[in-house]
């Protein structure tokens, strides 16, 4: 397989995976973050500790879970804790470095919405809601966010702040007195955005190969600023692509009866 043939989503997953380190401890949302974290574990970060909110601590799934509570996650975990223990001791207690989230909407200050599109009481679309996200983003030292970039997802202000990023920017997050630094990188199918050190507005820092800045501007619902130098991400290596495409999502045909 040529390393030059890959989809925008694969580019996005590979880019996100590279931001995870071998000694990272990562609280993982389902979907793309889960794929990126597994890719990191199976390539450059074999020592990474993966944590899912359902309770598995330090898990090593061989097939990608469909839900955050698949049996594969508990069977391959060092420990499985109750949900109150997960949120109180491990998350609120400050024992997790990286929170890895998706969302339906993000705004220029990295606030996330996964609750409603439209008005809360009479929404156009009711989304699943918060889950663990608000506290993941408060108590992990840093947050990584992955979502597709288009004018519907990248909006000037989110309809509902499910998860606080930098609120209205500046020192607003500091005044919240949460330990986490907030979203340090937003990885999309077009590139990477990072918060400006002072204003905390998301600015474009990298584009993926073949993506122009103009394309990113058009996909963003606010006048997007860029870093002084906008870099280009490295395309996936052949090894990354091999591992990524070998990841399979758990999809058994039905129950398999038999006592372990």
């Amino acid at each position, binding site marked *: 397989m040529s390393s030059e043939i890959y989809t925008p989503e694969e580019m996005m997953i590979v880019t996100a995976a590279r931001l995870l380190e071998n000694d990272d401890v990562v609280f993982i949302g389902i979907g793309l973050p889960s794929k990126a974290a597994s890719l990191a574990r199976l390539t450059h970060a074999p020592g990474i500790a993966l944590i899912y909110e*359902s309770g598995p601590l330090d898990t090593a799934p061989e097939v990608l879970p469909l839900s955050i509570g698949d049996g594969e996650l508990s069977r391959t975990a060092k420990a499985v804790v109750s949900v109150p223990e997960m949120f109180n001791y491990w998350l609120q207690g400050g024992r997790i470095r990286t929170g890895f989230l998706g969302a339906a909407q993000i705004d220029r200050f990295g606030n996330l919405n996964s609750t409603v599109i439209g008005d809360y009481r009479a929404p156009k679309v*009711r989304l699943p809601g*918060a889950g663990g996200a*608000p506290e993941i983003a*408060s*108590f992990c030292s840093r947050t990584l966010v992955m979502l597709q970039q288009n004018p519907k997802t990248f909006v000037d202000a989110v309809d509902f702040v499910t998860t606080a990023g930098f609120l209205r920017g500046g020192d607003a997050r500091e005044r*919240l007195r949460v330990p986490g630094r907030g979203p340090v990188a937003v990885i999309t199918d077009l590139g990477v955005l990072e918060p400006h050190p002072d204003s905390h507005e998301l600015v474009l820092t990298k584009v993926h190969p073949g993506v122009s800045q103009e394309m990113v501007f058009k996909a963003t619902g606010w006048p997007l600023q860029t870093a002084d130098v906008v870099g280009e991400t490295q395309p996936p290596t052949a090894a990354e692509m091999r591992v990524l495409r070998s990841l399979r999502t758990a999809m058994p045909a039905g*129950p398999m009866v038999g*006592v372990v």
Partner: protein
Amino acid sequence: MPEFIGLREAVGKYVKPGCTLAAEGFTHLIPHAAGLEIIRQRIRHLTLIRMTPDIIYDQLIGMGAADKLVFSWGGNPGVGSLFRLRDAYERGVPHPMVFDEHAHAAMANAYQAGASGMPMAIFKGYRGTSYPEVNPNIRFIECPFTGETLTAVPAHRPDVAIIHAQRADRQGNVWLKGILGVQKEAVLASRHSIVTVEEIVDSVDERQGGVVIPRWAVTAVCHVPMGAFPSYAEGYYERSNAFYVKWGDVSRTLPSFLEWMDTFVLSTDDFDQYLQKLKEHGYV
């Protein structure tokens, strides 16, 4: 010492119209059989509590059993929307409901507070989010020692908790293994608890791994093999991810949902017959 009774009798005896019910399970060990029995008995006006309402709550809501939902994540895990929940929220179908919406940390703490006999849970949550603006049950208090602002939510005190577990022993001690969710907390926070189990064995204890909920905290034990299907019971059967995917199609419109419920739930007498019918139609 819990009573060992059939599921129909347990639901009829403890799940009363208008009561507050927590049928918990975090992806794993979801008490589907018990939920379907509530639907068969047409028990209504329930306040449903659940961190992660999924298919069984979608079914209860779609059949009009619930007046209120207290929750923190309402979706079909890994698949997408719960369409009956969405219809209730977006369009008041089949009737308008009250929604008391939280995040997971608040819900987990509210169960723990209920289990601990506390009126409220204190934690650090919701900072900077829109939730306190839309939910009056999210309030802030000052720590009397440090002056720090903390978040408070009321404790969950359900009338009845329903959970599914792998095993109970003949004394009624309950044994769960794998992803534990908030099941123990839900049982201990509730006035009554019904536990459906895969198997009844001579004796359980924590030397076998897992977690034991001792018998005097359990009201009723019902032997319901496969009672978590299409969720899973670690050591017994896998999650039927295919069913979860299929549910997205079945539940998308109200007519197709109602037809499915009529065929598989209302036209069967109990969970065994329901499973048999699912097998005949290739779902299992």
